[in-house]
């Protein structure tokens, strides 16, 4: 009996930190969230871009209260093939955003993956305006985001060609060009714009923008459509 108790204690003392993905079946990413300066948060807001989709949620310490960075958590993503996953995080305390950060990686179905997000104080962006990551808000430089005044930047989508920073206007995804007059295109497909907005091509540019609440689907050879 004594021996068993002592052995248990040794195991407990030598065990490493728990694996946040240990109990997850399928693709899972260990997010390691840190900050260069001491930081306590009571909420971590996440905006996740995965497989052409986008979702936002909030996690907070079990039992309430605050937690000091660094923190780890598991991000399980439903994928049917290896795919890029982009994460933007905002550390909040009392409802105020203290710091934001972003990172992305490709997640395989059957291999462990990890992503480190380093949170830093956010820059001032104009709420509702669109920015490429790194231009006044945290994010991937090739992804277009919407500035969210009270929380984590919201991903609009990854730019297929490139994300263009425009000092005097909303940033946008550049299109590949060659849109056909009268055709419908998501922004950044064959014309410039927002990946979650459907445009009509007129003279090579997008007109009559229509925001797609559930995202815009690029369909090669066919008109693009709202999901």
């Amino acid at each position, binding site marked *: 009996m004594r021996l068993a108790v002592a052995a248990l204690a040794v195991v407990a003392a030598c065990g490493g930190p728990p694996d946040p993905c240990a109990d*997850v079946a399928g693709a899972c990413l260990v997010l390691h969230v840190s900050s260069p300066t001491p930081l306590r948060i*009571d909420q971590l807001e996440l905006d996740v871009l995965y497989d052409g989709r986008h*979702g*936002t949620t909030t996690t907070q310490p*079990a039992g309430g209260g*605050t937690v000091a960075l660094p923190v*780890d958590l598991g991000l399980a993503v439903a994928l049917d093939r290896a795919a890029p996953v982009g994460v933007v995080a905002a550390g909040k305390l*009392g409802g105020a955003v203290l710091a934001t950060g972003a990172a992305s990686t490709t997640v395989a179905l059957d291999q462990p993956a990890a992503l480190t997000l380093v949170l830093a104080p956010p820059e001032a962006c104009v709420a*509702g305006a*669109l920015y490429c990551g790194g231009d006044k808000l945290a994010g991937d430089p090739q992804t277009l985001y919407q500035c969210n005044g009270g929380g984590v930047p919201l991903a609009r989508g990854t730019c297929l060609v490139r994300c263009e920073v425009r000092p005097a206007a909303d940033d946008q995804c550049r299109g590949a060009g060659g849109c056909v007059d009268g055709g419908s295109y998501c922004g950044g497909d064959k014309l410039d714009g927002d990946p979650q907005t459907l445009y009509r091509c007129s003279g090579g540019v997008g007109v009559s923008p229509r925001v797609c609440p559930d995202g815009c689907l690029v369909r090669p050879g066919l008109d693009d459509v709202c999901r």
Partner: protein
Amino acid sequence: MRMVVPPLVAVLAVARLAAAEPDPVEAAAQVHLDRGIAAYQAGDFPRARAELTTARELVPHKPNPYRWLALTEVQLGDCPRAQVDIDAFMARSADDDPRRAELVRLRELCARRAAVVSSVPPPRRSTARPITRRWWFWSAVGVVAVGAVGAAAYAAGDAPPATLPGVTCDGSGCRLTGR
């Protein structure tokens, strides 16, 4: 678009200022709330309770002071008061307010604590047998010693990060894992 936004924002801001002067009561409540939160984070829970109580009295219709008061009262071991403030927060916050989950957990924690306290059996009379002769004494000494060595080794290295509840993203969006 962004060229249009700053002037528009300025116009809206001026219009808003003209339409509604800042409410001095709400401003004072915010000061007490901020002080209470700062005291909470510094671990000065009695002071936090005093500041947050003032904030709550100034703006009894707002949910946030109740939330912070509940968090503080749990730290002070005052679960009965915390439960009252949790209920008040719930009554004043929106159904989709993400802070509700935290307070639901807090309420459950309080309920468990109450159950534990009420189920503690009365102390039994001690026997005359010396403690060092009890079967568990030396096992406990061993566990404490091993634990102390482990803790010292652990403190010498980097502390592992805390773990937050995980997140799952699928075709219907992202949410906390298991919900």
